[in-house]
């Protein structure tokens, strides 16, 4: 973490601590989450999919939120906080574009300026989201360095923030980066876990599912849903892309202001991640996932691009729900391990809808 940003992070921590304890801030955020984002999101029981897999699958429908993913929970919180701190401008990184779209949306809602960095490679495969962000009034800037994906978009966003920290808030999109981000972003997503816990209590005889699963890139949607079940007997399973499995294949490292598992070469140079999903194309992972893994509270599985493509089609065909490629990773794991999971109840965080991926899948499936 560059020295220039240390005072800004300290100021942000103090501001968040104060806001989070302030009932009027919480009420304002809850109001936006309900009336603007459409919370609470339902849980959908997947009858046909469950019959086909022999596993009872429930979906937490974050894909039904405004802007089409869980990202809006965090972004509305951060934008409100930024406004409270007197900042007039948001800068953000984005992989698949979901966090960028959510940031551009919040900026439009609150009358703030917004600049989004996106890897050049990702801008090509997620052209629709680039257009959406521009339509919402945001400036979208390609990250041209390194692997030209999410990791490099984070670098560019940090470089911008170093230069603009006086009037700008860095609206970071996952449970990663320097303190207080992993904690703050987690807090903004605990609403997913809290709602899920209450909904499961009504829906399930045992009140809690046997397994709670979510995809993991930086890991914000997973942390959000895990938070509701960390104190239960539910097994927590994060699913990483095989080409970007920081927990599964990384070793401890320090980058982007955090110490966590990181894919790197023998000298500590950060390696490029490779995944069909732009949103999970990140060689690191939020530090809380590294912690949950090292204490054994959560485990992390890997799936291949081909398994994800099959899962994407499976859910579309059996339930009429086109998933984003990111949560399709979690379904791909359920599908692969269905024999081991037979008879169990699995809650999957459906973190985003698949509209953004349809163009890419059209090319792949022909």
């Amino acid at each position: 973490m560059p020295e220039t940003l240390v005072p800004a992070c300290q100021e942000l921590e103090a501001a968040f601590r104060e806001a989070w304890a302030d009932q009027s801030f919480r009420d304002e955020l809850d109001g936006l989450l309900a009336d603007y984002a459409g919370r609470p999101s339902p849980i959908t029981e997947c009858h046909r999919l469950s019959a086909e897999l022999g596993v009872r699958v429930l979906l937490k429908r974050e894909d039904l939120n405004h802007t089409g993913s869980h990202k809006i929970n965090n972004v509305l919180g951060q934008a409100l906080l930024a406004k409270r701190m007197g900042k007039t401008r948001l800068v953000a990184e984005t992989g698949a574009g979901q966090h960028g779209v959510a940031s551009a949306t919040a900026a439009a809602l609150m009358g703030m300026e917004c600049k989004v960095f996106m890897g050049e490679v990702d801008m090509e495969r997620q052209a629709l989201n680039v257009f959406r962000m521009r339509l919402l009034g945001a400036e979208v800037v390609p990250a041209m360095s390194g692997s030209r994906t999410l990791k490099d978009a984070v670098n560019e966003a940090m470089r911008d923030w170093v230069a603009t920290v006086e009037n700008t808030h860095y609206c970071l999109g996952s449970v990663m980066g320097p303190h207080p981000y992993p904690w703050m972003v987690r807090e903004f997503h605990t609403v997913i876990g809290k709602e899920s816990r209450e909904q499961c209590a009504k829906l399930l005889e045992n009140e809690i599912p046997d397994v709670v699963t979510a995809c993991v890139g930086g890991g914000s949607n997973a942390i959000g849903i895990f938070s509701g079940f960390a104190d239960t007997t539910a097994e927590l399973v994060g699913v990483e892309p095989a080409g970007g499995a920081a927990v599964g294949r990384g070793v401890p490292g320090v980058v982007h202001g955090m110490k966590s598992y990181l894919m790197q070469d023998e000298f500590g140079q950060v390696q490029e991640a490779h995944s069909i999903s732009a949103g999970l194309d990140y060689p690191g992972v939020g530090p809380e996932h590294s912690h949950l893994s090292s204490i054994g509270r959560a485990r992390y599985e890997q799936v291949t691009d081909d398994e994800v493509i099959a899962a994407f089609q499976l859910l579309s065909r059996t339930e009429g729900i086109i998933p984003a490629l990111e949560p399709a990773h979690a379904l791909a794991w359920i599908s692969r391990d269905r024999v081991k999971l037979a008879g169990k109840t699995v809650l999957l965080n459906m973190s985003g809808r698949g509209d953004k991926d349809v163009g890419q899948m059209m090319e792949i499936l022909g």
Partner: protein
Amino acid sequence: MSPTLAEEGLTIPDAPAEPGEFELSLRATRESGRKLLIAYVTGGLHDEWPDVVRAVADAGADAIEIGIPFSDPVMDGPVIQEASELALRDGASPVTVLDTLRTIDAGVPLAVMTYYNLAFHMGHERFASLMYEAGVRAAILPDLPLEEVGPWASAADPAGIETVMLAAPTAPDERLPRVVARSRGFVYAVGLLGVTGERDALAESSLIIARRLKAITDKPVLVGVGVSNGQQAAEVSQVADGCVIGSALMRRVVEGDGPAGAGAFIADVRAALDAS
């Protein structure tokens, strides 16, 4: 020992009371009435980089910062990003750069500038001792702030590596003395809000941060980030003890000016400093 996720704790050891070799050398030069000039050279960029180091030393740099290229240089602008990327593509690593460095007799003190993960990954003790064996006496890790410096400094101090701390324009008054107290070799004053790179004019903020630092320390204060030519170097050195020049030099190297061009540029900056 391979790195672990375990917290080493946040204790920050006091910097040794006595200045190290690097700082003593800069102090002696300053005492002689000369403004200090440190040139930054990306290690491993083209086969000729040792000649670039020698050329800028001969042209009047008082010390040289060797950049060990890192995959994610978040404090660097486009020029040093490109230089780093090219060097990495040429196969540069901490080991190859330090191995080569030990064969270069530059005749001036050497510092390494790189990012913390390379030290963390190799292990603090090993990284510090490899640097020392290569003739390096100071380290600049721009993504390792005061709060996190403890584990590294505990290894670097006894190994003879002076850790230079960055002092940013955003630091409140209560923070600067703590940064200065922990800084060894010199104090690196960050000249502006932003990453490394050339600017058309010297930022007002570089004079302000230099003034704030000079008021509280007699350690050498050098301004880096955004010092782009002889005129700007002379301007900022009216307040500071000197400056660090990186991007303006590396742009010339990346563009193919070679050791001779690099030397000529540093000679110009030196002349401007000496004339001021």
